[in-house]
């Protein structure tokens, strides 16, 4: 066992995969000598060389577009988008190209690429409008793309390794606040966490709160807070947004009869809307209350000033209040 930070787990996952499989390459802005702006590829350049640890020009469409071509010709690229906010110039390459290669060629071609994108905001992030966005709803909407949002250090490593080995394009979202905030003992031996299954992080009986990424942290704290009031919240870590583990979602709702979803992305048409819709369609007769969402505000992104950033984010207070409201319903 070794105690790792989230960021270490990300780095180690890539490192192990590059050691294991010489087809694996990383490409992106500043991933080379610098080792990435967050240090996720620190040391790779020296170990694996410039060709496999590729500093790209400052062009996101290029990063994804060339990765698609590399994958078509036998490489296994890990493309780093420096901040999720900057993925939009690559939107066409992700949505019209990567996600459709397999479908549009009737299965003849695949697109085994991993797109890593640090995302998210909050007071500690100081990211402002363009270094704190959540992009999962936009991309989880796209068929052919897998979207993964690990919360634990263990998952960060195991899921990233699965993503790299996945035969299809995976958008791997890493919340920036988690990079250095949490530490966990992680096995030294190799392990994988499969893409798909959700995980129950806290069993409960009063209601279920679904969350992913950084919001798990807030949601678990809120759950502890209301536990003292006799509200027993089950917290489910979705982990993979696409494909989504509807079985675990519905199972938990059937157990507790009440559900809420916590996400940092803008509320309107956010990921919680899909979870709510699935529950309404598949578990309507299990519901003993409305499905509620706690989400980021419907303003363009997280503003810079601390006061504004705090006002944007779903906080422990807001989440706990919603838990109380739902429990009392």
């Amino acid at each position, binding site marked *: 066992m070794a105690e790792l930070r989230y960021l270490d787990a990300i780095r180690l996952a890539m490192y192990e995969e590059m050691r294991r499989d010489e087809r694996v390459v990383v490409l992106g802005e500043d991933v080379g000598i610098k080792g990435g702006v967050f240090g996720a590829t620190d040391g790779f350049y020296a170990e694996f060389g410039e060709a496999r640890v590729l500093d790209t020009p400052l062009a996101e469409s290029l990063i994804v577009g060339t990765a698609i071509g590399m994958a078509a010709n036998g490489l296994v690229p890990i493309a780093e988008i420096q901040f999720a906010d900057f993925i939009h110039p690559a939107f066409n390459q992700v949505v019209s190209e990567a996600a459709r290669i397999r479908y549009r060629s009737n299965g003849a071609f695949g697109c085994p690429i991993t797109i890593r994108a640090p995302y998210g905001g909050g007071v500690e992030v100081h990211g402002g409008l363009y270094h704190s966005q959540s992009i999962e709803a936009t991309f989880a909407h796209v068929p052919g793309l897998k979207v993964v949002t690990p919360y634990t250090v263990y998952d960060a490593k195991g899921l990233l390794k699965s993503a790299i080995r996945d035969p299809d394009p995976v958008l791997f979202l890493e919340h920036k606040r988690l990079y250095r905030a949490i530490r966990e003992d992680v096995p030294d031996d190799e392990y994988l966490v499969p893409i798909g299954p959700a995980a129950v992080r806290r069993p409960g009986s009063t209601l279920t709160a679904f969350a992913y990424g950084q919001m798990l942290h807030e949601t678990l704290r809120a759950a502890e807070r209301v536990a003292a009031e006799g509200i027993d919240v089950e917290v489910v870590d979705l982990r993979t947004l696409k494909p989504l583990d509807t079985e675990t979602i519905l199972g938990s709702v059937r157990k507790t009869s009440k559900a809420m979803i916590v996400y940092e992305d803008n509320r309107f048409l956010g990921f919680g809307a899909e979870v709510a819709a699935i529950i309404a369609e598949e578990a309507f*007769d299990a519901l003993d209350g409305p499905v509620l969402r706690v989400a980021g505000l419907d303003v363009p992104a997280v503003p810079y000033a601390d006061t504004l950033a705090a006002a944007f984010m779903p906080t422990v207070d807001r989440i706990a209040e919603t838990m109380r409201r739902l429990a009392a*319903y």
Partner: protein
Amino acid sequence: MPVEIKLPQLGESIHEGTIARWLKKPGDRVEKYEPLAEITTDKVNVEMPSPIGGRLVEVLVAEGETRQVGAPIALIETAVAEGPAGSSEAPVTTPVPAAAPVSSAASAPSAGAVAPPPRTAAGVRLSPLVRKLAEEHRIPAHVLDALPGTGAGGRLTKDDLLRYIADRAAGAPAPPADRSPSPAVPTAAVAPGTGDEVMKLSPVRRAIAQRMAQSKREIPHAYGVIEVDMHAVVTWREAHKDAWRRDGVALTYTAFFIRAACEALRANPVVNSAWSEEGVVLRRAINIGVGIAVDEGLVVPVIRGADQLSLSGVARALDDLTRRARAGRLTLDDIQGGTFTLTNPGVFGSIWSMPIVVPGQAAILATDAIVKRAVVRDDAIAIRPVMHLGLSFDHRIFDGAVAMRFLNHMKEWFETFRDGR
């Protein structure tokens, strides 16, 4: 396809009805809303209007027979034009009685209702899960309506229902509002001996039995009695009753009692309340139920917003209700929504009564006979018309001090009565 006509839900907590008389016979043409049958229940007697138009094919329940609400009672072949759509509409299953005795005052303000507004009625929602559970466990609508809800705004939650289901399975007493007769029928075995005669229970008798038993089972009763000098009231009434009669108003003592009770209720709102596990529900409206003896037993019509009425207003309302009660012409609304009840055994000569609280209320007032007694007034013995006022109350809700404060408020009102009150 003939459409099944079902016994309508004729009111809150009414769970069965007796077909007193068919107004149509098989083969007859029935217009939509035309009276189809006379139905007697433990509360009211109504003419049931046909929910659809067509030809009465068959009656499924003979006159004099009793059925549960929702049971099929007749088959009507609909006119072609009405088709199957008409058969699935709400009126078939829950027709609103439209005949004269019942229809005129359809909307009762829910604030003053004894029970919470029916959950199964439009506008009040059961969650999908509660609906499903209720169906699976065959819990009838009237039980759902009456189960105490612990959710927001009194909503019936999953846990509420599961608790009820578990209790029911464990053979625990039925919930307060489960007014189905079975649990209330005395369980002690009474075997008729030789020469004994079993007097069949009328619906009214059965309802009274059940409700009284329920009250005694659930409400910890306590009592308070006070003696009132009725001199001022008697004097004033004697002076005015003839004039009032000429105006068409019978000035009964009961009208005074109601007025006094309203004043005391205003001053002591907790007496105008109902117990729930969530807390004491203080009723905003003051709706006074008045026990009236009828041939079959007792009915308790309600004077809504009694505190808003003057003495003559109360007297007129009381007069009207009494007449209609004795004529068997009370409507559903007349008997629903009471928040406090007054019973007047004094008319039969009782001087000391301890009535049973009506389920869903906090207290019931008994007014006994006004009897001339020797009393001490200003250290002298005087002959005065004296009455006992007795309050039976739910001791969960308030204590004896409140009861006495309430009674003393009435006493004060009576003893200082003068013109213009």
